[in-house]
């Protein structure tokens, strides 16, 4: 049981298995189950997206984007991300700073509350803003009086997207900043830097890779949010349809090639996010 003899004729050598390792065949079994599962659940859906998108070749793929509603959806999604990502980045920096650098009462409660939006159903994330700003909502009557539209319009889409992507930058930065410690910042302050200089010249360079990954992740999620936005947007074509909602519309109209072509763009964004995560792992000092 302890030794496995490799009988390959080219290399007569005996490999001794360590007592804290599994036998070769059980290792092989575990790896194949894991790889097989990942292939079935993760790789195959990706293959399907591109296969369906290119069903009518390159021309069909390009043609899918030659559509007013599609271009409008892309433009709207870019606008939503352009508002959401900076706001959540500022919040993420502030939250990570106070959680990782100071001890105060209620810190655990605060960190739990920051994580909360991740565990709330996206539908509820949309619902709460309808209850606040919808026609029958809390502020509904007074908003109507002033002619301000939040639900079924850009502000509602932005608010629910902010809710859904609320946690990401803080979630990436906090453990990194806790692990890095604060000796450099303290040194900067002792040497006479003011708070602003310390932040820009010491903290930002220290956390830049984590910050970049947090921003990219927040961006991918804000461009891809479906459930929350679907509740508040009202699905008005050429007005309040974001890219994921537009994919749904195309799919339900059986326009499969355009639906998957648009989906493939978001898929590439997701893959780029994963690649960036892998590339920055060591630089972020993450496990």
């Amino acid at each position, binding site marked *: *049981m302890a030794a496995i003899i490799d009988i390959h004729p080219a290399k007569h050598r005996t490999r001794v298995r360590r007592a804290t390792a599994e036998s070769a065949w059980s290792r092989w079994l*575990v790896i194949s189950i894991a790889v097989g599962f990942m292939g079935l659940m993760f790789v195959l859906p990706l293959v399907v997206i591109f296969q369906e998108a290119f069903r009518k070749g390159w021309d069909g793929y390009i043609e899918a984007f030659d559509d007013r509603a599609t271009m409008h959806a892309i433009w709207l999604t870019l606008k939503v991300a352009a508002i959401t990502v900076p706001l959540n980045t500022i919040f993420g920096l502030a939250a990570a700073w106070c959680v990782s650098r100071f001890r*105060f009462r209620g810190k655990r409660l605060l960190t739990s509350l920051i994580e909360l939006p991740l565990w709330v159903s996206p539908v509820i994330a949309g619902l709460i803003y309808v209850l606040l700003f919808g026609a029958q909502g809390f502020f509904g009557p007074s908003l109507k009086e002033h002619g301000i539209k939040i639900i079924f319009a850009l502000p509602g889409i932005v608010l629910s997207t902010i*809710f859904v992507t609320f946690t990401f930058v803080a979630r990436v930065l906090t453990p990194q900043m806790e692990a890095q410690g604060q000796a450099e910042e303290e040194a900067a302050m002792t040497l006479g830097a003011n708070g602003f200089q310390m932040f820009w010249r010491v903290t930002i360079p220290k956390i830049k890779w984590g910050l970049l990954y947090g921003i990219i992740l927040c961006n991918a999620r804000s461009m891809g949010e479906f459930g929350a936005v679907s509740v508040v947007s009202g699905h008005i074509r050429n007005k309040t349809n974001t890219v994921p909602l537009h994919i749904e519309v195309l799919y339900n109209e059986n326009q499969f090639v355009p639906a998957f072509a648009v989906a493939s763009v978001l898929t590439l964004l997701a893959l780029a996010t994963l690649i960036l995560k892998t590339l920055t792992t060591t630089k972020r000092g993450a496990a």
Partner: protein
Amino acid sequence: MARTRHVLPGFRLSLGFTITYLSLIVLIPLSMLVWKASTGGWDGVLNTITHARVIASLKLSFTTAFTAALVNGFFGLLTAWALERYSFPGRRVIDAMVDLPFALPTAVAGIALVTLYAPNGWIGAWLAQYDIKAAYAPLGITIALVFVGFPFVVRTLQPVIADLSMELEEAAACLGANRWQTLTRVVFPALLPATLAGMTLAFGRAVGEYGSVVFISGNLPFKTEIAPLLITMRLEEYDYSGAATIGVIMLIASFLILFTADLLAQWNRKRTGH
């Protein structure tokens, strides 16, 4: 509160901004849910939650999420173990791919999964030979929820496996245990709390999932209608308090799930000493 002077600046500014932003975006809007649910009064709440269609959808959401969490517990443990302990070609690619459900928009996952599992899809056609219906059935919902919950189990387990001290396994081997005995009596008990914590998080994520499920589920009332979908239906009927009531039930469930995950994390710290 913070009477002591801090070495680093920005405590009041960052904490103040964090709490203000958190209140405006998360806490005040969420409290609306409770307010609106209560406008119907007790009768309204009872009417909503005893409605057969509501009960059926909640039951479906929780059972499919639970099944998905069990599946993820098994495959997540094996995958995390393979990623941390073995080296094999493509290990880094697999490791990166685990996060795919975090990055891929749920609607994109939804249309990809339904295309695969529909009766004319690659896997659906194969399953149809054995009279198994995946898409437009609870099985399809479970598959979608396995997809979204998987990273939570793997990412919770990986650091715990990496930190397991080899000495315990060496001691077990020295004391005459074979590898299987070491794994089942030493390694697995140490990994149990983290596995359960990861499964709980996967369950919590899956219960509220919407985008990746609505395409594959078929959305038949009483059969394949999940609770978040029912909320959107209630909203379309302008039954705001009904929608809010289902929302409150799901929110309470999320709190309980998070609380459980936190308890399991504490158990894990006690057991693994971290």
